[in-house]
């Protein structure tokens, strides 16, 4: 506008090209482009990973994700351990929500050894409770974290404080703060303590008014809208091409939720409807997650209301020291806070698993999707895009 007003016409060749495509020719020797690294030592990357950017001014022409900084080789270590020994090792595959790994491993071993229906009802309700609490803890960091990427740090402070209260409830229920090892093959490890529901209800009340505050802070904020709307749009036809799942898919109107599609545990007995949004930009993804925050609080209330008062928490399982499982393989999935989270589990009749392979949502989100999204984006938006895709390195490289 001002240019037209002043009659000033810039030389288009010197400006960053507006339409950047993945196959744009990049000649580093012409001094138009520069290669910069985001991470691994950079506060703007989620966790310990690196993004190699080729920028022209502020525009990103090419992006390359580098992972493996957290590689521990779980899938190799599990081959040297008994089923029960491998359990505490392999739940550390994802630090954000370890309970999902616990459920997957427990479920896979139960299914392959024919104890799928032996798990008591009370234990299943407790499993659901801990899974939903893990989702809540993740969302309490994730939703305000999106504002934190735009330097709106105050919401992060509130959110992480409330997450700590949820971790206290976890400690009360399971005895551990981050790695709980609560869901074991055949059931769970402990009953619900006395007065747990009341204390949980207190925290949920705090979280309720936090939800209102965070809405006023983020979604009613003009600057947040300016930065988040229209940024890193996921179109519905990308969903199947890139294997996008979870809130990232629901943010653009594709309603995929394992809890509804293939109900596991007692999710069919709960009454909920996964939220969706229409335009799949950062703003609507964050909006979907904010609605999920409300829904998760409601789900925890439903679970605590509907679960039986008491029951036995463990099925009679064979002696773990010499527990052999016949040859077979299966794939079990669940809906984690980041999307479909599954495990391929192979046994060969020995007392050790043959192979486990984790399918984390970030495996696609952080590599193929992120590299596609970053092309043409602004350097200032990389952190926001990564957080909005919920990239979590440890589940990529295991």
């Amino acid at each position, binding site marked *: 506008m001002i240019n037209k007003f002043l009659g000033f016409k810039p030389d288009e060749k010197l400006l960053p090209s507006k339409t950047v495509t993945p196959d744009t020719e990049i000649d580093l020797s012409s001094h138009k482009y520069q290669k910069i690294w985001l991470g691994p030592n950079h506060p703007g990357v989620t966790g310990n990973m690196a993004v190699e950017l080729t920028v022209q001014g502020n525009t990103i022409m090419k992006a390359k994700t580098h992972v493996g900084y957290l590689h521990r080789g779980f899938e*190799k*270590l599990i081959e040297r351990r008994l089923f029960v020994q491998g359990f505490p090792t392999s739940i550390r595959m994802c630090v954000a929500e370890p309970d999902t790994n616990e459920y997957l491993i427990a479920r896979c071993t139960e299914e392959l050894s024919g104890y799928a229906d032996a798990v008591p009802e009370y234990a299943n309700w407790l499993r659901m409770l801990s899974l939903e609490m893990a989702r809540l803890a993740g969302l309490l960091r994730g939703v305000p974290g999106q504002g934190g990427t735009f330097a709106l740090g105050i919401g992060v402070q509130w959110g992480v404080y409330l997450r700590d209260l949820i971790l206290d409830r976890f400690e009360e229920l399971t005895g551990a703060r981050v790695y709980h090892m609560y869901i074991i093959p055949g059931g769970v490890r402990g009953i619900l303590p006395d007065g747990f529901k009341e204390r949980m209800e207190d925290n949920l009340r705090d979280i309720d008014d936090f939800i209102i505050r965070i809405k006023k802070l983020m979604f009613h904020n003009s600057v947040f809208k300016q930065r988040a709307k229209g940024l890193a749009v996921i179109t519905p036809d990308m969903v*199947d091409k890139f294997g996008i799942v979870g809130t990232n898919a629901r943010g653009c109107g594709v309603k995929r939720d394992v809890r509804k599609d293939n109900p596991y545990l007692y999710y069919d007995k709960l009454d909920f409807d996964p939220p969706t949004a229409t335009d799949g930009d950062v703003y609507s993804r964050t909006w979907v997650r904010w609605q999920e925050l409300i829904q998760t609080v409601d789900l925890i209330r439903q679970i605590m209301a509907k679960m039986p008062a008491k029951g036995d928490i463990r099925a009679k399982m064979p002696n773990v020291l010499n527990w052999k499982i016949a040859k077979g*393989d299966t*794939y079990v999935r669940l809906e984690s806070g980041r999307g479909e989270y599954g495990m391929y589990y192979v046994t060969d009749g020995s007392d050790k698993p043959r192979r486990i392979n984790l399918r984390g949502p970030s495996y696609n989100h952080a*590599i193929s999707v992120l590299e596609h999204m970053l092309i043409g984006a602004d350097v200032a938006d990389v952190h926001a895009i990564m957080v909005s895709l919920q990239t979590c390195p440890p589940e990529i490289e295991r």
Partner: protein
Amino acid sequence: MKELIEKLSSKYELQEVTYQRNNLVFAAINKDSAIDAVTYLRDYEGYTHLVMMSCVDWIEEGKLQLLYLLNSPSQKNDIGIRVYIERENPEMVSAHHLWKSIWTYQRELREAFGINFPGSPRIEENFVVEGWDDMPHMLRDFDTHEYAEKTYFPRGNRKTNDPAEYMRAKLYPNQPVTAKQRKDDK
């Protein structure tokens, strides 16, 4: 799932079919027609969502088992296509033209199992390990413990004991070892 398997078997000869759950079935197809089957499932049967691609090392039969796990969002069930390939200098047809995300799996399998996917983009790049000069680290005959022992300066004072013996000694010191237990330990 049954009619799907019948349709498939009419087109390609399936070697083994396992009905794992009512919404999960595994079918083994020979190496040449596997990608055709995957393409057919994606285009005509609505299995549009690639869940994962994995590999299992069956060293006893000298085979590597590839797995293409497909999910149908409309019918809400999964089918896993198994492909058995030779273990020495293994090679498989690349499927990077079907999904935009599958080249990452192929890159990982190339590094972890040494499987070559000709034509797959960035297949030569390292995925997780850097400057790796040993055999592919996910093969069964690669001993990770031995590698760590000789590489990473282990601190001497770590001792590991057989869980069965240890628990018996600690928990039930004065209980005789029954014949069944002795059999189990073997």
